[in-house]
């Protein structure tokens, strides 16, 4: 239980992917103009992160390490993620066309999202600081990926809400667009800095 809480708190708040690790900034800045699309992107990223970890972690641990080809991890992981995204797209298209219309457009963008490759690389590395003494296994890995995705979604939603309001204000020409978005993001980061005081 302690490990569960530690992982959830670390993934969502203290080591948030956007505000602390700065992974997955491209969709964070690109798809956060409207809350609806931010939620769609966030959910899509969360699902792909959890699924990708579910596949890559066992492949790395039980296939690549015993065979001694763990140095090829980047090629394997990016291939697994790319094919997973393709498959997910086809499945969603078949099962629920309405869901495909809202979420499907974000799926192709996810292959080249740092957050997905980042989480698969993180969970095979040193995770001891989050585990509160437990040893790493696939369950914790997927849990971490899932909640890291939810943390990503949380920040996306906060950002999109702020940007929707910012639309009503006039900004200087040079500051319009990305600069304003980044300064907004900086304030979110500062707010999230408070959570680093949580001691697990």
């Amino acid at each position, binding site marked *: 239980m302690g490990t569960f809480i530690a992982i959830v708190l670390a993934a969502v708040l203290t080591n948030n992917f956007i*505000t602390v690790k700065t992974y997955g900034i491209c969709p964070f800045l690109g798809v956060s103009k409207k809350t609806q699309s931010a939620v769609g992107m966030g959910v899509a990223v969360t699902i792909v992160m959890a699924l990708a970890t579910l596949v890559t972690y066992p492949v790395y641990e039980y296939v690549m390490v015993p065979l001694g080809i763990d140095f090829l991890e980047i090629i394997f992981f990016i291939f697994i993620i790319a094919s997973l995204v393709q498959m997910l797209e086809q499945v969603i298209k078949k099962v629920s066309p309405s869901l495909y219309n809202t979420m499907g457009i974000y799926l192709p963008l996810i292959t080249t999202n740092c957050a997905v490759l980042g989480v698969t690389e993180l969970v095979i590395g040193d995770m001891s600081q989050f585990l509160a003494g437990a040893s790493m296994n696939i369950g914790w890995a997927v849990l971490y990926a899932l909640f890291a995705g939810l943390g990503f979604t949380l920040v996306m939603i906060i950002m999109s809400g702020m940007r929707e309001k910012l639309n009503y204000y006039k900004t200087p020409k*040079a500051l319009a667009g990305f600069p304003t978005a980044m300064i907004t993001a900086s304030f979110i980061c500062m707010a999230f800095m408070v959570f680093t005081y949580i001691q697990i």
Partner: protein
Amino acid sequence: MNKYKRITLDGLIFQNPTLMLVLGTCPTLGLISSATSAAGMGLTVVVILTLSNIIISALKKLIPNEVRIPCYIVVIATLVTFARMLLEKFVPDLYDSLGGFLALIVVNCIILGRAEAFANKHTVLESAVDGLANGLGFTCALTVMGIVCEFLGSGSIFGLHIMNFTIGMFATPAGSFIIYGLSIALFTYIINLFEQRKRVNENRLARENLLDKEAA
């Protein structure tokens, strides 16, 4: 010659991947709190981008259109893995300071973007120049922002201690976001000013030409 000059200027200034197109943001924001790691990241990207551009433009006849993206990703991932091995062996300090961002070069939009937008349509030499120019544009932007960020956040430049007064925020992503945002704003402002002046100049020349013609 003019063609290469245009490619270089585009990559370095007018289409600067970091400041004009805002690509490859993750490593930028993660690493500009230290100028050394920012410059190291930039130089690694220069090498990988140039090599990937060369290889992809050399193979463009061979690769069928349908599977071009997976092929590019394999080439880039190979180069990144190779670069990671080299850095771990010969420059372990830099390897440690880049951390997870080294593997994430694979999904850096700049590299895949240049492969898709430039290298698969142009000759090997043009692609090499383009890769070099874009990579250097990325490196320069990162290094300058890194110097500013490190000076404010840690009171040092390239690890060289200068002053004791520091603003802690600039050592964290919050400060990186602000520096990056303001750099984009300043760069866009300067480019706009430059282009406006160029346009005014062109208009003046055109008007004078017209007057000359009428006078004649």
